[in-house]
């Protein structure tokens, strides 16, 4: 639970929605499913109401997994889930992990989870299946010492997504390695002046 509840303003929403780039509806559906599981139908209604208030009315029930939607809308929905569920950073991290757990695409994405090495190598293809902008770059993979380094390039929507992605990568690493203990650190971040986001993920 977040002690300092943050309310998204119209100005923030407008600024966010101006950023270009699209994502598959499956990503948004997974986040909405997380909200539904945490708070039920009333939370979904609240999110719809808030989207309308902010000037971006969306018929959530009509979102299709294969259709493309603005990534900004996806990020705005994450911010609204955080707002209505009053989530702290831990909640955002969990939502990132839930995104893979509840994804309607999980059934067809398992071919990327064959092994940590394969997952590392196929990461760019995996990214391209979801996004039509930016990219993910596999930097290093060390099976012996149990770590990998990934970069996300040309992605700058909101700092909350840095936590969300940490949760997401942690869950993917857990699935592909079968290890219980996964550590993740964002070693570089565009919001700290770096040219890209870089994540160091290790397991044992």
């Amino acid at each position, binding site marked *: 639970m977040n002690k300092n509840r943050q309310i998204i303003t119209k100005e923030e929403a407008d600024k966010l929605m101006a950023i270009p780039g699209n994502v598959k509806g499956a990503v948004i559906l997974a986040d909405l499913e997380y909200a539904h599981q945490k708070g039920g139908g009333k939370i979904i209604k609240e999110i719809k109401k808030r989207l309308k208030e902010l000037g971006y009315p969306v018929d959530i029930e009509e979102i*299709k997994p294969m259709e493309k939607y603005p990534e900004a809308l996806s990020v705005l929905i994450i911010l609204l889930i955080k707002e209505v569920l009053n989530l702290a950073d831990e909640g955002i991290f969990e939502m990132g992990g839930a995104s893979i757990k509840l994804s309607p695409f*999980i059934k067809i994405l398992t071919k990327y989870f064959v092994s940590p090495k394969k997952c590392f190598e196929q990461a760019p293809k995996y990214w391209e299946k979801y996004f039509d902008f930016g990219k993910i770059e596999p930097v290093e993979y060390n099976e012996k010492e149990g770590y990998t380094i990934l970069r996300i390039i040309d992605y700058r929507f909101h700092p909350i997504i840095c936590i969300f992605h940490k949760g997401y990568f942690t869950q993917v690493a857990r699935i592909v*390695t*079968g290890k219980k203990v996964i550590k993740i650190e964002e070693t570089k971040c565009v919001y700290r002046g770096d040219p890209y986001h870089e994540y160091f993920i290790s397991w044992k």
Partner: protein
Amino acid sequence: MTNNNLDKIKKELQKTKEDLNDISSYLDDFSTFLPIAVCDLSPAGIIIHINKSFEDVSGFSALEIVGEHLTDIFLEKSKINKILNLTRRREIVKNQEFTLLAKDKKEIIVNAFFSARKSKESNLTGYFLGMIDISSLKELQNEIETKVKRKTKELESRTQEIAESRTALMNMLEDVEESRKALINMLGDVEEERGKAEEEKNKTLAVITNFADGLLVFDTEKKLSLINPRAEDFFSVKSGDLVGRPILELSTFPTVEPVVKLVGGEIKGVFRKEVQIGESLILEVSTIPMIRERNRGL
């Protein structure tokens, strides 16, 4: 590429997306409807997707269980790893009994089916696991087995009792047989003794009968038990008239009366006393006690 071609490709792409959405929706509906609990596993054995029935049986939501290893929700952890290895080789492994550890800590017996998922290049991409809750069936089976065990035990106990009774009966029969043999032996001894006694009696009777002196033998109750032929001659009586009478009663026979007077009712000791019988006969009378073990006679 002309604008027409581009429009055509865009339309085709849109149609394909719609078809994919429909397929995805169909698969979701089918997965939700399926009464069998199903989950997808990664090659490492991590749960990556579960259907509605799996949630119902296990009590775990996808949010709680996806990302956990399959061994985390089964009691037979090493067997799970063995079966996954077997499935990798055989592709399908059926009818494996496992104990599912549900969220509420309840242990649910399930019949599990495993299938390997492979890529076009035959590389393992994961596994399917299907399972059916057979707790009720198992409970019924256990009840029947318990009953059968109990009945078998009862039957064994009865058989044991019958065997013990039979042994006891056989022992009794042996005892009876031994007793019978002992009795036969005893009868043989008695018969032998009786024969000896009879022989002795005959010898004695022969001696008494042919004795030159007259003999009167009394029993311990002072009743006449024997009179030899010589005495019958002396007293002119018949044995049948006298035998069995008490000594004092013998005084009613005139020829015997003098002897009765001499010895008295108690048959006192007499040695060579003379008695006048009639006018011409004088008898010399002696009494001798007869000792047979503890009894005394005359």
